[in-house]
């Protein structure tokens, strides 16, 4: 009776929750499970967003994150890159942004980060473009809503830079939404957990493989060549005297 009740519960749980959902495309080789090296940059204020950031079809411009986020924001962005590269075979390299127009080639980097007005405070916090192929060079770009109250850490009003960016980065790398509760790739912002969760990690590892971990620094100490020479000479002398 008890086991059948648990079975029904498990069935119900399976019915309401999905595993990770893949978006469109990936960086690097198209084969799932292969790693990628991805560059990123921070766009400067005044960089043209063409008509991407306006609703009336006029030409607009981006605002640099340093102009609407608190100091220390860059560390939060870097934490988000680390959160994904610690679990999947991803390498992120920062580049200097040359402030060329949005969605043009050549582009300063793969993932260009900036801000513009989205829809006022609340509702949409940020958006990201899926990996290539996606428009000209917009793929991977992440735009924050300049109207939000950006904060570092949980609690109080506002939205945490790390939590939003690591979610958007999930999209920029190829993950879509999941219905799995308490999952980073759930669509609604939450402060009940931080960063990628088990289902998110599984999705990213499917796309890029597991992280290539550096071997621990000298886990087994190697003898120095001088030590090897001395011990070899002692052994030789010992055996020589035995034979004699």
């Amino acid at each position, binding site marked *: 009776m008890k086991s059948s009740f648990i079975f029904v519960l498990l069935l119900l749980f399976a019915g309401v929750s999905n595993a990770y959902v893949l978006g469109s495309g990936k960086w690097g080789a198209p084969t799932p499970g292969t790693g990628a090296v991805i560059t990123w940059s921070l766009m400067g204020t005044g960089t043209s967003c063409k008509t991407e950031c306006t609703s009336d079809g006029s030409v607009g411009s981006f605002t640099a994150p340093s102009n609407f986020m608190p100091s220390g924001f860059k560390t939060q962005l870097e934490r988000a890159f680390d959160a994904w590269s610690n679990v999947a075979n991803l390498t992120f390299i920062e580049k200097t942004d040359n402030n060329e127009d949005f969605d043009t080639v050549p582009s300063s980097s793969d993932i260009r980060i900036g801000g513009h007005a989205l829809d006022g405070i609340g*509702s949409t*916090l940020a958006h990201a473009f*899926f990996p290539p192929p996606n428009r000209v060079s917009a793929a991977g770009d992440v735009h924050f809503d300049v109207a939000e109250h950006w904060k570092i850490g949980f609690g109080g009003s506002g939205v945490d830079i790390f939590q939003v960016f690591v979610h958007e980065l999930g999209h920029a790398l190829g993950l879509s939404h999941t219905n799995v509760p308490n999952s980073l790739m759930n669509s609604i912002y939450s402060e009940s957990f931080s960063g990628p969760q088990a289902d998110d990690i599984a999705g990213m590892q499917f796309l890029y493989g597991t992280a290539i971990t550096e071997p621990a620094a000298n886990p087994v100490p190697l003898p120095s060549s001088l030590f090897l020479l001395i011990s070899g000479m002692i052994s030789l002398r010992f055996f020589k005297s035995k034979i004699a």
Partner: protein
Amino acid sequence: MLIFAIESTMASWAQMPDERLQSQSQLIVYAQYLGDSVIEIDNKKFNLGILNVSKVLKGQISSAFVFIKTPAPSQGLRSDMIFFKSGQSGLWFLKPVSNLKGIYHISHPSQFQQTTPSGDIVKYWQQRLLNP
């Protein structure tokens, strides 16, 4: 009130309180999504989705069909685009598009809540709108 997020939506959204959802919605209707089509207005092309309305909870409509602005494929795939599938039925909380008269848009997953015409969500909103 639960947020019934649509599977094909992808972005980072803040929770939408019911008060805000109610106040920002010019129209609240029970409708079915019929499909979308490209329409040219003032020499500009727009992707418009068509809703077949069967019940109006808030606002007024002149026809059973209401148009919503939907993402155009030429815009590329961006995480805050919300797509719908033909046949999806439920409550729609519609905001007007500022420069397109008679056209609405969906910019938050809570603006569409999948349900049946007599579902609990419909009853909740009917009650809520009667007793604001």
